[in-house]
């Protein structure tokens, strides 16, 4: 059964230096509050796994948490580069960052294989492209019926999976809704898991018998962090803060402005700072 913890305790107990760590959330429900707590606790040498290492990994990598990044698309969506990731890759600042690069289809399949307890995933992919030349983890398998060749990638089984969800009930069962990305897969594929939620409620208010629910016994820790996905969003709670993403381009472009911003907004703050965003419902 999931334990109900505060965020600092959950990160202290579950996330260790050197871990393979996946913070997931496909644009929606990105666990920013959890990422900030990991930065504050100064974790080092993490292998960070994420399909779309956008701002949260830009911040974690810029603050020196990671030695490796496993990813399939790294940028500030609709805005431009993730400058801190580029600085790490191009100039080794603040430290070198090894890359293991995939396509979205491969990573989604690799999470899926991890959740299904398979050692690898296969896909009709990587045909005629250069990525297999620079990523030796991309291999091939032959269909035992048709003789066709398919691409393979190893299953992703993180040490720790971290997601943000809408709400949990008092038993620790968790509901997601909207764009659910590969969050279910990450939780089921990971050895340890932290799920931050907007609220803890008596009744999950699942709208459908087929609602996306992770049972309590699949989760390590449940942490209430209202607003904890900001500047990403939480379906039915608050909308995406697109102006933050746009502003990040300038903040992150130079090391000095980045460090100053992190000091003020992350190092000197706590999870409670996210609560202000929980009530913000943009008209859409």
């Amino acid at each position, binding site marked *: 059964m999931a334990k109900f913890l505060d965020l600092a305790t959950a990160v202290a107990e579950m996330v260790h230096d050197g871990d393979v760590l996946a913070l997931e959330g496909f644009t929606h429900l990105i666990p920013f509050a959890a990422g900030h707590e990991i930065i504050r606790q100064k974790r080092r040498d993490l292998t960070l796994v994420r399909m779309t290492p956008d701002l949260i990994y830009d911040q974690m990598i810029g603050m020196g948490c990671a030695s490796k990044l496993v990813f399939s698309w790294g940028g500030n*969506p609709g805005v431009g580069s993730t400058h801190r990731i580029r600085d790490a890759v191009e100039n080794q600042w603040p430290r070198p960052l090894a890359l293991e690069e995939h396509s979205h289809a491969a990573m989604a399949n690799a999470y899926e294989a991890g959740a299904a307890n398979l050692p690898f995933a296969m896909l009709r992919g990587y045909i005629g*492209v250069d990525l297999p030349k620079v990523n030796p983890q991309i291999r091939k398998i032959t269909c035992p019926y048709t003789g066709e060749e398919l691409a393979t990638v190893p299953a992703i089984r993180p040490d720790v999976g971290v997601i943000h969800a809408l709400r949990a009930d008092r038993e620790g069962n968790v509901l997601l809704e909207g764009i659910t990305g590969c969050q279910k897969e990450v939780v089921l594929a990971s050895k340890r898991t932290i799920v931050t939620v907007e609220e803890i409620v008596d009744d999950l208010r699942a709208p459908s018998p087929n609602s996306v629910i992770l049972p309590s016994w699949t989760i390590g820790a449940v942490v209430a962090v209202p607003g904890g996905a900001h500047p990403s969003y939480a379906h039915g709670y608050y909308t995406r803060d697109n102006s933050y993403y746009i502003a990040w381009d300038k903040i992150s472009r130079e090391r000095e402005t980045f460090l100053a911003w992190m000091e003020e907004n992350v190092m000197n703050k706590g999870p409670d700072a996210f609560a202000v965003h929980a009530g913000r419902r943009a008209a859409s």
Partner: protein
Amino acid sequence: MSLSYSPNEMMTVAAARALRNEDVCFVGIGAPSAACNLARMTHAPQITLIYESGTIATKPNVLPLSIGDGELCDTALTTVPVPEMFRYWLQGGRMTVGFLGGAQIDRFANLNTTVVGDYHKPKVRLPGGGGAPEIATNCHEIFIIMAMGKRAFVDKLPFITSMGHGPTGRERRALGVKSKGPTRLITDLCLFEPDPETQEMTVVSIHPGVTREQIIENCGWTPSFAAHVVETRAPDAKELEVLRDIQARTKAAHGG
């Protein structure tokens, strides 16, 4: 009466026109998304737009900034998990059109969005492939939208992120890929289509007021022109009005 419009507007309008009411289109973010939604709001109201975030048959009122803005989910027929999107819907062969952009393109419509310079010692590290490598082979055909320029239209790609017709135009077929690959390349100056023999992307239509010289100057290889090159029909009032409206709504919504 002639309307005034920008090259970018011409490009978006021309891209939108390429789409049909019956298409099921896998939409890339940015310029493809603008073109696809313009098509939906003008001549192709029944078109099915799908974003890799899992949103199926979405009808956003403003253009999403990201591939997974809430607007996409709120207006979708249904939203599926990302692994299902790539397995059942993209790999499943459900998409008639994949609509891509890119940082660099070569004459056979191979795309690079990964890196400039050596992969291991990059001069510029680009975002990477995302969905593109599998979009490029699993959709029935590919439309590409990109503004021309010598840094974008290059003679030789440093890295092939997604395959067009292959480095010499023959690899796609040689690898046994059954889908058509890039059938249209829509730019701010002209429209390209693959030569039926060589698969080289060839200018088939030039936008009003653009010269062949401009196209040549903005292309990193010497572009071929089809035997019969036509003039692209200029955007009409309705197309421009709808496009400008959606862009105004988008700007207001994103608070940019």
